């Protein structure tokens, strides 16, 4: 997994790239969580993520819940078809902020 981060005002956009599985979840958390903890609105761009397993889905849930605690939000943007299918299988499309 690789990533790119862009900051504009109070919004941090994190572009993730590659496959997100158990092997890279700790790295994903290290990339995402500090931005949520700082109270910023975080946009996760998943257009280049072609595979995500239950560990990756857990990172999305944890990010969402962490953002609620910090009175901010995580927006998941440009989800690839394959990842959207997994999000829907987990019945999270109404829970997570998808754009």
């Amino acid at each position: 997994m690789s990533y790119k981060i862009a900051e504009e005002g109070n919004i941090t956009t994190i572009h993730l790239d590659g496959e997100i599985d158990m092997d890279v979840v700790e790295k994903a958390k290290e990339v995402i969580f500090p931005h949520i903890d700082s109270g910023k609105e975080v946009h996760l761009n998943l257009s280049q993520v072609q595979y995500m397993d239950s560990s990756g889905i857990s990172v999305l849930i944890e990010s969402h819940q962490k953002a609620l605690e910090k009175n901010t939000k995580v927006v998941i943007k440009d989800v690839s078809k394959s990842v959207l299918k997994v999000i829907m299988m987990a019945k999270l499309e109404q829970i997570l902020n998808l754009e």
Partner: protein
Amino acid sequence: MSGIAHLNHSEKKAFLVNSSSLKDVRSFCRDVFEKLQIEQNLKDELVLAIAEAAQNIVKHAFKNNAAANELMVVQISCENNKLQIAFYDRGTPVDPKKVKHREIDNVKPGGLGTFFIQEIMDAVEFKDGNKPWINHLVLTKQL
């Protein structure tokens, strides 16, 4: 059911029991499913189910602490359009009664892997592992 007659075919491969093997497990599955001419959507689902089962071996049967040379074996077989995926490992014996996913409406991190496996596959069965194996999980799906 797909309506396509898939090849009768079987392949197995051993992987080290660690999280960095999961991408190799997925790669192996994709290669085999390519040979079986399984369509992309179903292929994606099957790869997810298999990778989740392999992840459970790493995470639960070995508690993320397998010896460096510890192996698990994944075998994919297709016969008469019935797909069977077998997993063999030497981790802590699995009690099938304790294998359950979290309530899907209780949204929290974790507990989804088994749910995905059960959603995707027709049957999930733990069989007795013949020596040297301890656990023998079999997933099946009619193609």
